């Protein structure tokens, strides 16, 4: 059967290209681009004729190959300097070499004995747990935290969910900071609060954070005399 190439056999366009280079016993540093491009496109056609969805990456590499081919067809300029010019294949070759190296690394890793498959550790039987110490260490993982958050979001009405974008987190950071300063000092002037904000961005965030805290009625701002300094206090001391 000539159509026995399955897309899932290849780990992407680079993998397919590497396969073609090996099959044709081609020197990776001197790829006959016309031949390889033809074979690559033929493979894509076969895959398509099998009604397999081609990932965009495969088509992108096809475009790259055609581009290189057209560049190589351009007549060479007369000046000898052009000899020094970059080979249009160079970038692709470097990419292929890097990929090949990691493919080998992957094969080496794939050969290592794997825990719970090739080797096993002591069975997980219950053991007595003595009491814990006071200021204990906590085993935590950022991914667990994110995952927990996503779990909640997915169970909640999407309309209710505010976008957690960069800005929102930055704002939370700033609000946290302001409240911390207000804990140690009873009342801060606007100048004091803005002191640390060296960049325009930080200045804006500090303002936004102050407004948000006021809106939420967590802090209050006072001005003793008109045009006097504005001071910020915790709403509930």
């Amino acid at each position, binding site marked *: 059967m000539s159509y026995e190439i399955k897309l899932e056999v290849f780990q992407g366009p680079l993998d397919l290209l590497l396969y073609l280079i090996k099959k044709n016993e081609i020197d990776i540093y001197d790829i006959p681009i016309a031949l390889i491009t033809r074979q690559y496109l033929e493979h894509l056609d076969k895959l398509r004729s099998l009604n397999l969805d081609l990932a965009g990456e495969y088509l992108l590499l096809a475009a790259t190959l055609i581009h290189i081919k057209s560049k190589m067809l351009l007549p060479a300029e007369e000046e000898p300097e052009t000899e020094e010019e970059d080979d249009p294949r160079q970038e692709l070759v470097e990419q292929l070499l890097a990929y090949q190296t990691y493919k080998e690394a992957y094969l080496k890793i794939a050969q290592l004995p794997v825990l719970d498959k090739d080797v096993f550790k002591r069975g997980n039987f219950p053991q007595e747990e003595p009491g814990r110490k006071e200021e204990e260490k906590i*085993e935590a993982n950022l991914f667990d935290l994110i995952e927990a958050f996503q779990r909640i979001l997915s169970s909640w009405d999407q309309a209710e969910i505010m976008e957690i974008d960069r800005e929102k987190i930055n704002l*939370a950071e700033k609000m946290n900071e302001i409240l911390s300063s207000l804990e140690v000092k009873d009342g801060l002037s606007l100048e004091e609060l803005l002191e640390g904000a060296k960049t325009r961005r930080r200045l804006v965030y500090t303002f936004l954070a102050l407004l948000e805290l006021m809106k*939420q*009625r967590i802090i209050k701002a006072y001005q003793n005399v008109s045009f006097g300094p504005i001071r910020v206090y915790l709403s509930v001391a």
Partner: protein
Amino acid sequence: MDDLRGIIEALIFASDHPLPAEKIGELLPEATGPQIKEALGQLVEQYRSRAGGLVLSHVAGGYQLRTKEELAPWIVRLKSGKPPSLSTAALETLAIIAYRQPIVKGDIERLRGVDVSAPLKGLLEKKLVRIMGRKDVPGRPIIYGTTRRFLEVFGLKDLSDLPSQRELKDLGI
């Protein structure tokens, strides 16, 4: 089947429960009952005579490797140093506080859909969360936020290190 004893030892070691001789027989149809019994006897004897830190005991109808009883004081030292992990409830509560701070308890509960008193108390005790003040609205609810220790535990420089919604989407989480 030249190393029956080794195979049985590995099986007992890897098992989550005391392993009965009959179960070993089922796993090793290549060996006869008497062969297995004999190998087990030799193993028990080997562990007894070699004066190491482990014993092969016959408990709960099966065989199990255990640390010697007199070594318990050292094992206790090992186990007491083991860092506890956070429960799902605590982790979810912490995640909401981290991303939505400053936040009041009512809002956390609205998001989680359940009472969060217990996990919140635990997080406060672990110093991952702190009271940041009160909101000047009826009931004057307490507002919560994360601590410096929270950043340390999760290896974050500051809160802006938390992955954003877009980045989470990117990972397909």
